[in-house]
């Protein structure tokens, strides 16, 4: 079980409160977690990563275990603490005005 914390706007879209969890078959990576997340919440397709290129949207960041994972390969293993459910993967909207 992978714990995921979404930013407020995406929690509203997905109609979830607080953390959400997803099950991933195989290694826990950004790609596998996002695949599972979008499968559970289709409304999130296109909001975190591009529909076609699957690249992270520029104003979205991925943090976990006090590390910035945004620039890791989407297929790199997530930290063990995330894979084991001890720590959540944080999907963060970049701090910016507006």
């Amino acid at each position, binding site marked *: 079980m992978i714990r995921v914390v979404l930013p407020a*706007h995406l929690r509203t879209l997905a109609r979830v409160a607080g953390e959400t969890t997803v099950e991933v078959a195989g290694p826990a990576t950004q790609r596998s977690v996002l695949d599972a997340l979008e499968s559970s919440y289709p409304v999130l397709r*296109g909001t*975190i990563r591009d529909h076609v290129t699957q690249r992270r*949207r520029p104003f979205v960041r991925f943090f976990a275990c006090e590390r910035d994972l945004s620039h890791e390969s989407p297929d790199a293993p997530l930290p063990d603490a995330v894979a084991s459910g001890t720590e959540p993967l944080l999907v963060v909207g970049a701090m910016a005005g*507006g």
Partner: protein
Amino acid sequence: MSSVRVLVGTRKGAFILTADGKRERWKVAGPHFAGWEIYHVTGSPADPNRLYASQSSGWFGQLIQRSDDGGVTWSPVGNSFVYEGIPGTHQWYDGTPHPWEFKRVWHLEPSLTDPDAVYAGVEDAALFRSSDGGATWSELAGLRGHGTGSSWQPGAGGMCLHTIILDPSDPKRIFIAISAAGAFRTDDGGVTWRPINRGLRSEQIPDPTAEVGHCVHRLAMHPARPGVLYMQKHWDVMRSRDAGDSWQEVSGNLPTDFGFTIDVHAHEPETIYVVPIKSDSEHFPLDGKLQVYRSRTGGDDWEALTKGLPQRDCYVNVLRDAMAVDDLDACGIYFGTTGGQVYASADGGESWNAIVRDLPAVLSVEVQTLP
């Protein structure tokens, strides 16, 4: 008694304003999609309870929301807008080639007859269509690919396709406009397109009378006169009496002919409205006085309408999609400002009242006249 429903898109959500046919007492519902930019909310002419909204954000991209109950409840539908083929390039602000990239939906135009059919005008400029209530979208690629696309360039707000007009007398004829490329028309349902910019003159481009490159801000048409088009260009108010084949300037006695929005009275096809804005470098009314100008002659002769509008210290803008008319017997005119006011006139513009004063900056206003 008839009623009206005003659909307002703002920088931070959508609002729905309702009143009976007297249009004196208003209910304000919202914000819907709080915190998101709502470029446009509009209803289907074929089913007024079917609404579509464009919801976007610089962080999380584009969503399309659909309501089947007049805006009480909403559901997200499809948000995948993929250009057909290899998108190629258009001009960037500095004239260099820049790849076509989808950014957002500026305008949604439902079919006149089918609630499930709707067009979307997007940035970077292209036209998409859905025939399944917004679940899936396909590009009408003949517009972007007709030949001049590589020379289109963005206006200050981005390279947006912001106007879509469906001809009620000919289901295969569609007019669209792009900043800054110009106006275009299809006569075969969107397969092939051609620029319709003859008569436009823009000193901001190398060839002022070029076939494309004009910053058209808005087109308007009265459904009873589909061959007559009105245009608010960057500078200049224009009219065409031949479906866009040629244009004549009708700025006449306007104090400034810069502006963004233009619309036509519901029952008087020659009566048109604009909101003059000082200049392209000062996007607010002249002298701090918010004035709607009306022409009853299809342009050239204009009169200022000021009763009820602020006549001092007013420095708001009225954006291109932020004016609309109802079709009650006494035609109502509505417009929203970047200061968050939505003004309404229940007497064709003679007098104005603010329905609401403190919304986020208004991006779009549409009106539905309900039985």
